[in-house]
């Protein structure tokens, strides 16, 4: 990591250890809450929500590698916030289009006053190209009809970026989440975070609500998805690190048959293997952030590589974590289960291992 990144990491860790350790997540879960407005305001004050917002729009514009550093630190302690939806994906989408409306919207992201959610997926798998939600031309605007599922941060969102199919092709709309005709149902997610099913019934949208051009959603959305996938990979790498840290601590402390279980060579080798895998994944994650900063148009391979590796590593880390903790790892009173459930959700979000493996294959000529 660069010196700047190391400083950012240290600062983030310092803040989050105080403001949002895993016990903070447990508190939200026990209270049935999926958002902490005070925490989000603090993130805004530190410039995190504006990490990808240009400085002239009020952001800190630190870039994707920095966004990855923040996401990774959040992953370590399961920090709950709309950071990826809003500060990473919506900000990246909005900054693809330079006008007064997007500048204002980006400013609102940077100052923490607005939460965005991406309403893209419709079936059980991530598949933007398969979008069926209809945008039917109606005078100068459109009427949107259809259902979006797995809309992460959808229940807490102020605004939605909605992917719809118009006659001219896929089109991206930026509309308020409470517009007439929109119904939102929060889902009871296993990771106790915000994801919603959002139904659109003849929702009116004007031409001004279109982000970018009609029929050309991907010019705006693809960079946003890539950015989100890279940051999510970073979060998952952090998650794996957090789970692994708990596990190593347990191996050193827990005694069984009279000795620390960390003396059992079979466990040592599995732990060492997991550490090696984490190191390799860390490289892919770092590379994805840098590629996005340097050459976003050609970053797809790097991003999918990171998401695929992070998915596999996080899965390994939580499975080994629960198994090595034994019975206690299965109890709700212990935190390891939180990591396992979060790992499963983010494995699916924005494309699973197989989805990204196929993107890697396509880029490498398979």
């Amino acid at each position, binding site marked *: 990591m660069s010196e700047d990144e190391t400083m950012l990491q240290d600062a983030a860790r310092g803040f989050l250890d105080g403001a949002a350790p895993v016990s903070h997540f447990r508190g939200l879960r026990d209270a049935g809450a999926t958002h902490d407005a005070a925490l989000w305001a603090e993130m805004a004050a530190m410039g995190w929500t504006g990490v990808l917002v240009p400085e002239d729009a009020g952001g800190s514009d630190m870039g994707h590698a920095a966004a990855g550093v923040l996401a990774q630190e959040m992953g370590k302690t399961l920090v709950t916030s709309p950071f990826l939806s809003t500060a990473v994906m919506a900000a990246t989408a909005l900054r693809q289009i330079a006008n007064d409306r997007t500048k204002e919207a980006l400013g609102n992201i940077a100052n923490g006053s607005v939460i965005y959610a991406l309403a893209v*997926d419709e*079936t*059980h*798998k*991530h598949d933007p190209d398969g979008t069926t939600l209809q945008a039917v031309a109606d005078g100068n605007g459109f009427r949107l009809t259809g259902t979006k*599922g*797995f809309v992460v941060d959808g229940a807490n969102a102020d605004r939605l970026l909605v992917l719809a199919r118009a006659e001219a092709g896929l089109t991206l709309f930026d509309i308020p989440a409470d517009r007439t005709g929109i119904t939102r149902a929060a*889902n*009871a*997610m*296993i*990771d106790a975070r915000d*994801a919603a099913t959002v139904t659109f019934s003849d929702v009116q949208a004007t031409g001004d609500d279109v982000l970018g051009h009609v029929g050309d959603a991907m010019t705006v959305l693809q960079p946003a998805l890539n950015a989100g996938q890279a940051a999510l990979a970073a979060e998952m790498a952090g998650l794996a690190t957090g789970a692994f840290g708990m596990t190593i601590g347990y191996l050193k402390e*827990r005694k*069984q*048959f009279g000795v620390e279980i960390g003396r*059992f060579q*079979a*466990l040592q080798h599995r732990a060492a293997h997991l550490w090696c895998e984490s190191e390799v994944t860390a490289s892919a994650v770092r590379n994805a952030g840098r590629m996005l900063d340097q050459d976003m148009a050609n970053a797809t391979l790097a991003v999918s590589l990171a998401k695929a590796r992070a998915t596999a590593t996080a*899965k390994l880390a939580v*499975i080994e974590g*629960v*198994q090595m903790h*034994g*019975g206690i*790892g*299965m*109890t*709700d*009173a212990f935190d*390891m*289960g*939180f990591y*396992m*459930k979060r790992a*499963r*959700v983010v*494995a*699916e*979000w924005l494309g*699973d*291992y*197989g*989805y990204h*493996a*196929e993107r890697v294959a396509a880029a490498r000529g398979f």
Partner: protein
Amino acid sequence: MTDIELGAFRAETRAWLEANCPAEMRDGIRDEETICWGGRNWQFTSAAQKTWLEVMAAKGWTVPTWPVEYGGAGMDRAHDKILQEELDAIGARWPLQSFGIWMLGPALLAFGTHQQKLQYLPPIARGEVRWCQGYSEPGAGSDLASVQTKAVSDGDYYVVNGQKVWTSYADRADCIFALVRTDPDAKKHLGISFLLIDMDSAGVSTKPIRLISGSSPFCETFFDDVRVPKSNVVGTEHRGWDVAKHLLTHEREMISGGGAGLLGTRALGAVLAEHEGGMDAVTRAEALTCEIDSLAIGLTLERYKDQAESGGGVGDASAMLKYEGTELNKRRHELLMSAGGADALQWEGTHAGLAADWLRTKANSIEGGTSEVMLSIISRRILGLPG
């Protein structure tokens, strides 16, 4: 016995079941909701459930291989197999399940006195008393012999103090069979007794354990100066570990078989095909491999059952069955979650239960002896590697 005799038994059994198994008990569903656990406080979910238990218990068919005097039907394996096949053929529910049938019964048959058998087995067979198991203790983990719960002698009684964990359904059971330390000065494995304790005794309390998969049948069970008659010791005093070891082997077979029972019913491919959309190459490949392994492990369970029936027993190889069955079950559920995608990530909705089942499988390779313990058993006792 001759094939003719067995054929006659099959015909009789079929006719009797046809006449006596209530239609509502023939839906073949054997999930938690439909199980009859019995016990003092059992509330039958339907009149049919009650009838089904009563007629089966009257014939000794809730525990067909137990001796008649202890509530069974004294069947040999050949007859038992026919009965099971005929029950399966009409999709009959089990009339009764319990830890009494699975675990305490076999232990009493092997180690109990005649008096103990007469006292405890028939109520189990009739579903009148529900038992739970008290082995694990907090912090003990795989080291089951590190029993801290104390049973101090006081005349004809023991006074029991301590705590158990992972006692399934302790909050609903009538009695518990537990390992307690009766000789604190003896070596670890030599001071333990196998003790039967009524849960209604003064000083017994329970507290449910919440799992990562949600609510669970598991409890913590506390003993606070609980007085238990010494006649409730099964087997020799201080030698309860022998009984426990016998049961642990039995438990391993049960857990591995449970996993495979699930497997046998439906091809993984059929389950996956229910989820709309095709499978990516990686998921499909894992599904193929998993299906192959499922079938082969199913065949292995059958092979070992044959071997056990022909008198060879299973012995330490039960560790293999437990290891392979539970690790496979974890892989299967990872696949099912992957096939379900975003739909499988909710506690409720169209895929309700899938995530909870997936999380629950993670305990399969921990409970009843971890996979690591299984591998160590195989390494030492079967492969003869130095320990």
